[in-house]
Each structure stands twice: as C-alpha cells, then as structure tokens.
C-alpha cells in the first residue's frame, strides 16, 4: 500500500503535535479516522484526526474518494451535453450548477438571453437555493442529535422540488438551461402555486427558528464553536454563507449578478459578526427567508416575451476564454471556459465552493472536542460532489 504525500505530511504534523502534548501531559495520542464512511460526512470525506483524549490536536481532510473527473469529461462533450454532467456537482441545488456555465458560454458567443428567460433563470436559481439550504437547516439538527427537524426539512423541500419538476421535468437533474435562454416557458398556473410554496417555506423557517435555533442546547453546542475570523475566511477562500457568517459582506448576486436579474429586486445580504457555527446557521436561515422574498418579487415582475434567443441549431462557440462566477447555494461557483471554436469546450475549470470551504478544516479544528468536529463540519455545509467534482 502506498502512502500519499498528503497522508505522510499529516502524519508528521500530527506526530510533532503529539510530541508537544506528550511532554506537557504525559498522555498518548490516538489517530482517529473520521470517514470515509461516517454519517457526519454525508458522503465519502475522510478526516484524519489526531486526538488527545477527546481533544483534536490536528485534523487533515482527505478528499477525492468521489472524484468523477467532470472537468476532463466536459472536454469530450458538446456544449449542450455538458449541462447534463455538471448539474450533478452539487446535487441538492442542481439547476444552480448549470447557470454559470451557460452564462460563460453565452458570454463567449455574445448572445444574451431574452429578459423573460433571465427572470425565470433567476427564479429557478433561487428555488434551487431553497431546495439545497432547507435540507441543511434540518440536517444540522441531526448532526447535533436532534432527530426531528430533518424530517420537516424533507417534507417542505418536497414542495420546492415539485415546483422545479413542474417547470423542468426533473427533480434532481433538471438539465433545463440552454445557451441563449431556456428549454421551455413556465407551465400554466405555476406562478400561483409557487407563491403558496414560498409561504410554506417561510413557515418552515419560522418553525425551525423556534424548534432548533431557539433551543438552549443548540446554542450551547454551536455558539463559540469553530470561530473563523474574517481574515482567515478570506485567506482560505471561503465564500457564500460561510464568509458572510464571518462578517464579510460579499455576495455575488449583488456585487456581480452577470446576466441574472438580482438588481431588479429589493433584497438584503445578511451577515453575522461572530463567525461561529451558530452564525453560519443563522445566516443560512435568514438567506432562505430572503430567497422566498426574492422569488415572490420576481414572480410579480415577470416580463412577457420569448424564452429563447436566436441561436444556431448546431452550437459552435467562437474561440476565446471566459470566467463567470455566481452565488450558488454553497458559495461562489465559477466556470472558466476555454474555447477553440469547436463543438465542445477545449478546457473547463470548475471553481466549486465546498472545496474551498472545507480547506479551512485543519485551521479551525485545532483544539476542539470530537463532538465539535461534527458541529463544525455540519455548519461549514459541504456537498461531497461539490468538493470532489
């Protein structure tokens, strides 16, 4: 069995840390493999934790157990085929994965989606955010030992998935976004139904705020646990709610909407100064609520018109390079697309949010207890597909 260099380095670092602890306390350390098969990693993430009793001395995440090579696969597919692949990256908010890639391709082709398509895109983008984050809100409870909230999350997420399915035909992998617009228009009666779902989602947020976030044990477990100061968050490249929970006022939806219509609606970017696990939960809860308001406003102002611009039947993207990043449910997701004028991209680099978010683990997990490892992992909120791609 070969030992990778990373494992070697982790071992040396842990041994050095061990030596320090042993000199002080005369105790023997223990290496604990959290994962790859562990319920808290909801996937196959492995964390090599060097323990002193229940205290973590050093933690090293090992990723790549689910590497599927989407960047390479994209090179041997045509542009319309790529979306089928990439909506499997973050499988909980799959439509949101397609959007930045399509926007990058549109930028290269210099086509612009008609206004109605851009608005529906934004609506579906926010619906994927709801489908994704609502599950986090319940799952955090399971990680902390409260069994009930996750079932409420699944119950209410179902309504959102139904709405996505009604438009796209797919609950998990819509494959609906096209270069130059969308495949179809909204079905009849969808707008009114969606308004009802938004009310349900807001009730769900209220329910969880009462049930879980207001719980004293929940606060005791999350407040002050896994504090990430803003400068550390920036230096590790944290994005999305994780960065905003550290007090960084950065949201791509507001700062660089590129093609999505967020500047047409009145909304707020939520930040929290604390940077601990509680702040990360709080920010996501507020964002879920904010997303329902965004969707409602977008439904109000939905313009009429076609949903598809004039694009050739066989799509050839002119040579060039483009990078488009959007604020996906997990954080900033960007596609760097290099085209040589062929049917498919020459190279696609995917910047996914969870990969950067999880890189802060060795820093933030020094000196915490084993239960806090789970709290921090849960509150950083990653999707394995988004880490390994």
């Amino acid at each position: 069995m070969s030992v990778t260099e990373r494992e070697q380095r982790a071992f040396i670092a842990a041994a050095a840390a061990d030596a320090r602890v042993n000199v002080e306390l005369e105790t023997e350390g223990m290496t604990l493999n959290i994962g790859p098969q562990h319920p808290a990693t909801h996937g196959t993430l492995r964390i090599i934790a060097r323990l002193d009793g229940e205290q973590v001395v050093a933690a090293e995440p090992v990723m790549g157990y689910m590497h599927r090579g989407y960047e390479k696969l994209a090179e041997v597919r045509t542009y319309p085929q790529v979306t089928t692949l990439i909506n499997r990256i973050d499988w909980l908010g799959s439509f949101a994965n397609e959007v930045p890639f399509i926007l990058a391709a549109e930028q290269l082709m210099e086509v612009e989606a008609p206004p109605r398509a851009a608005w529906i895109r934004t609506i579906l983008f926010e619906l994927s955010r709801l489908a994704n984050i609502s599950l986090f809100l319940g799952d955090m409870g399971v990680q902390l030992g409260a069994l009930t909230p996750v079932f409420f999350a699944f119950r209410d997420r179902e309504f959102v998935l139904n709405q996505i399915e009604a438009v796209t035909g797919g609950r998990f992998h819509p494959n609906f976004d096209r270069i130059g617009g969308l495949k179809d228009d909204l079905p009849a009666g969808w707008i009114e139904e969606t308004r009802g779902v938004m009310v349900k989602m807001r009730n769900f947020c209220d329910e969880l705020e009462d049930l879980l976030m207001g719980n004293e044990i929940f606060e005791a477990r999350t407040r002050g646990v896994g504090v990430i100061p803003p400068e550390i968050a920036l230096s590790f490249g944290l994005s999305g709610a994780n960065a905003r929970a550290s007090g960084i006022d950065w949201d791509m939806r507001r700062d660089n909407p590129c093609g999505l219509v967020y500047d047409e609606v009145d909304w707020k970017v939520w930040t929290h100064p604390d940077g601990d696990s509680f702040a990360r939960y709080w920010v996501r809860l507020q964002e879920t609520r904010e997303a329902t308001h965004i969707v409602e406003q977008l439904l109000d102002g939905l313009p009429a018109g076609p949903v598809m611009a004039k694009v050739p039947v066989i799509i050839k993207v002119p040579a060039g390079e483009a990078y488009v990043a959007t604020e996906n449910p997990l954080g900033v997701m960007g596609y760097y697309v290099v085209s040589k004028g062929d049917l498919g991209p020459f190279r696609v680099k995917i910047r996914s949010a969870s990969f950067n978010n999880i890189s802060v683990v060795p820093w933030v997990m020094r000196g915490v207890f084993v239960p806090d490892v789970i709290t921090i992992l849960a509150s950083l909120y990653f999707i394995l597909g988004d880490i390994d791609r």
Partner: protein
Amino acid sequence: MIEILAFEPAYWLQTLIKLGVVALVVPTAALILGYVFLMKMMSFMQSRLGPMEAGPYGTLQLLADGVKFLQKEDIFPRRADRYVFALAPVVVLVSTFLLFVVLPVGPDAVVSGLDAGLFFALAVASLSVIGVLMAGWGSANKYALMGGMRAAGQLIAYELPLVLAAIGVVIQAGTLDLNKIVLAQATGEIFGWGAIGNPYILTQFVGFAIFLVAVQAELTQPPFDMPVAESEIVGGYQVEYTGFRFLFFFMAEFGTAFAFAGIASVLFLGGWYVPGLDPASGWFNLIGPFVMFIKIMAVSALIFWFRFTFPRLREDQLQKLAWKVLIPAALLNIVVTGVLKVAV
C-alpha cells in the same frame, strides 16, 4: 378482604414462575415501548407514518426485526477480546432483568419484596456501566472505546443525582421498601384531605424533575446520548455488535427505560394505587399491573418525548449540568425535605 392470588406453590415452582415472569416482562416491555414510542410516536412527531406493513399498523414490525437480528451472523472483530466482547451485552441485559425483580405491581404481586428494594434497584441499575465499559473495551475499536469511556463517565456522574433525588422520597416515606413507599403514598393526606392519597410528585416535584433528567442520562438517550451518538461516534460501544448481541443491547435499552419509568411511578406517582379504593384490598394484585402499566406509559411518554425533541449536549456540558446544577439542587431538596419532615 378478598384473597386473590393467595395460593402458596412450592418454593421451586415459585422460583420458576418468578423467573418466567421476569424473563417474559423484559422483551415484552421492550417491544411495547419500541413500538409505541420509537416507531409510532416518533413518526407522528416527524410527520410520517412509521412502519405500516408488518401486522395491523405495523404492530409486528419489531418482532420481524427481532427475527431478522437472530438470523444475522454473529461477527467478532479480529482483534476483539472475545470473552469480554461476548459477555458485555449479557451483563447489560442482566442488569435490566434484576431491575424488574423488586418492581411491585400490587401488594403481593412482586417477584421479591426486599426491605431495601429501592437500594437494590439503584444498585443493580449501575451494573450496566460495567457491561458498557466491557463492550467499549472489548470491541477493539476506537469509536467503541470512546463510547465506552463516555458512557462510564456519564453513568457515574448521573448515578449520584438519581440516588439523591430518590432520597427525598425515602425521607418522606421513612422506608426503602418500594411497596411500603406505595402504601405511604396511598394512606397519605394532603392537609388532612386524603381522597387521592399523597402522591409524592406533589411534594417532591424537584426530585421528580431531577430523577427524570438523571434517568434520561442513565438510559443514554438524547439529549444525553453521547455514548452512542450516531452522528459523532457512530453508535459508540454498540458499533461492532451484530445480530442477537445487538438485540440484547436494544432490549436492555428499552427494558431499562420501562423499569425506570416503573420506579419513577412507584416513587412519585403512587405506584399501583388508584385513589378511592382500599390499598389493603387484594384486588390490587389484579388491577395493580394495569394501573402500573398506564403510569409507566405516561412517564415513558415524557422520557421519549425528550428523546425525540432535543439536540445532544457535549460531554463537558453534560458533566457541568450534573455536578453544578443537578447535584446541588438534589442536596437542597434533601435538606428542605428533612427540615420539613422534622418540623411538620
């Protein structure tokens, strides 16, 4: 006085009957609690139906599960301490069986009415710690070891508030005999009004609350389930167990919950007594079990309600709660009870 169940079989037959009763009660109790609370109440709280296929409304689901467990391979981890590993679930289960020995369900309907019944119950309850430690150590698994150590620390810390909370009742009743505690509540009076007796929950409500919290910790249920914490240490000391050995742990968990709910209803809710009837009546040997069952289910509902509602505390927070809140409160309760007992 009508003599019900007033037959005197030979000693060996008596012993056999008693053994049979205890051996039947534990699995039945585990089945009932598992079905009513773990499967149905939890499901309804989580807006789902739970098992619906095996038997009417899924009533036979746990039997089906039990048969499934018995069919499974009995796996020993390669580096496990074989004897310790094999014996651990038995030790835990024996502690549960012993608990039922002193639990009275009628004036004479008790397997063995010991003078120091409460003392015996609390003593054998802590036997399970040894089994849990054995399981944690014998599994040769780091998660199991952590679970075992957490369980040991937790059970020892919560043994104290459990005993101290019961002492208030003992002071008030003036006896350690569980049946006499029931009688003391049945014949008690509230300011000279004796219509409903004097269930000690009215005077010992602090003790009742502390007792329930400590029981929750003894049973390693949320919010005190760190020893098994599925999302952290993947089942803790149970992680390496399969088949019927796992079934033993399951039965012990729910059987003990049933027994502790029984002890709580004896100590605080008046046991098998129903207000308005003569506590000396032999009829209580017949209706006592049903009365006890209702009271036990009521207390269990509380216990399992907590289980499905709360997140889990951290290990250090749990110890802080025990030593800084529960034990001082229990001691204060004892002092107040003692002073009032002497003064009134």
